[in-house]
């Protein structure tokens, strides 16, 4: 339970948002070329980091826009928020 500073709407309660999981997982450019191992990696395998994690969030009950959040999963402190397409801040 925490507040998220939506880059479009400002600070709102986390319950207004939906988590989209780990960010910057690139969709394969040539899906037909992929082996089963590579598909599993893309679809299922996650770092699931305890610590600072880059993730996607959607303001479901607000502007409904996607953006990225840098959050420490061990204490839920948010270090940065940035829009889709923007470069992730360095740690």
């Amino acid at each position: 339970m925490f507040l998220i500073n939506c880059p479009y709407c400002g600070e709102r309660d986390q319950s207004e948002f939906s988590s989209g999981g780990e960010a910057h997982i690139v969709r394969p450019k040539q899906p037909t070329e992929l082996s089963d191992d590579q598909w599993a990696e893309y679809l299922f395998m996650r770092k699931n980091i305890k610590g600072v994690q880059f993730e996607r969030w959607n303001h479901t009950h607000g502007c409904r826009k996607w953006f990225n959040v840098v959050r420490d999963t061990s204490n839920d402190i948010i270090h940065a928020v940035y829009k889709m397409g923007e470069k992730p801040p360095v740690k």
Partner: protein
Amino acid sequence: MKNKYSIFSLIKNAFSYHENWQRAWRDPEPKKEYDAIIIGGGGHGLATAYYLAKKHSMTNIAVVEKGWIGGGNTGRNTTIIRSNYLWDASAGLYDHALKLWEGLSQELNYNVMFSQRGVMNLAHNLQDVRDLKRRTHANRLNGIDAVWLNTDEVKKFCPIINTSPEIRYPVLGGTLQRRAGTARHDAVAWGYARGADAMGVDIIQNCEVKGIKRNGDSLEGIETTKGFIKAKKIGVVTAGHSSVIANMVDLKLPLESKPLQALVSEPVKPIIDTVVMSNAVHAYVSQSDKGELVIGAGTDAYVSYTQRGSHDVVEGTLKAILELYPIFSRMKMLRQWGGIVDICPDASPIISKTHIKGLYFNCGWGTGGFKATPGSGDLFAHTIANDEPHKLNADFNINRFISGDLVDEHGAAAVAH
């Protein structure tokens, strides 16, 4: 077993005002080397060590635990035990565990207070009715007891449920597994710890694993806060922290760790003598022997290791509880807590070898691992001792995420995930 617990030992110790009971397990310093190390001293890890010693004669083993025995998810769950899962693989796994539960207090010479008070799952809409009926049929084909109850039968079985058709999610019926029930969760950890210790297993508490040392594709041992410990075989059973250990060897797992909450009320006289779960509204409730209502809430929908959980999740659960049980409207809640659960995309566990020789993972139990504790330990011990899975956990390997042969228990398992 060193000192058997019995009515006679109870009487004997009464004369010394119960001040001279022996320690249930030793508190050893780690040896330099073990044949196998289990990381994680929860119920599953201790059960694994117990069955490794008991069935596979591996007694030169250790369980290393970051905190203390019974302080993790073993002591944080809502103690529900059932085996009414839809798919054959899950039915085999969870009913194996349930059969072990039925003899566990005798096996361990430790009262785990296993109480087969039944678990009832409610249906609140037509799709629930169809799904739950289908599941009872599937259960019966797998030899698992399950019956369908209509609304009147639900009311008869648990009279305090509000079965009025006027409520937002009316009760349209439910399923009942009579062999299901509850157990005292920390007694399970203590019983397995005592049993494993008696066979020579070292249980090392307050010992956090900091790294896993490898030499090419083989294992050398673990770096811990109590120094380096050599071992050729390592079994990882660290629930919500499975990915933390996996990241030490650059192994990616299909897991996300989330806080799952539970809460208990003030103690009251016996009012509910079974376990009632409700999938659609996500509320489940039972009553502990102390008289507290034990209420399970949902998970937060994002990765977090914070062991607390959000208020809105609890609020949603309590709203549902109040509509189903208006009699609880003035109950006060005493305690609320969270535990970190590791959830697989198919909501089924992983009990598996890995591509690293000698490294085994038992994880992904998500929101429902407690019920499987004895079975999980037994099958994981078999997997570690033989370097091959038992036929009951063969389907629960890591490679299923590559082959696509998933055991999809989302919703199918009679509870929302």
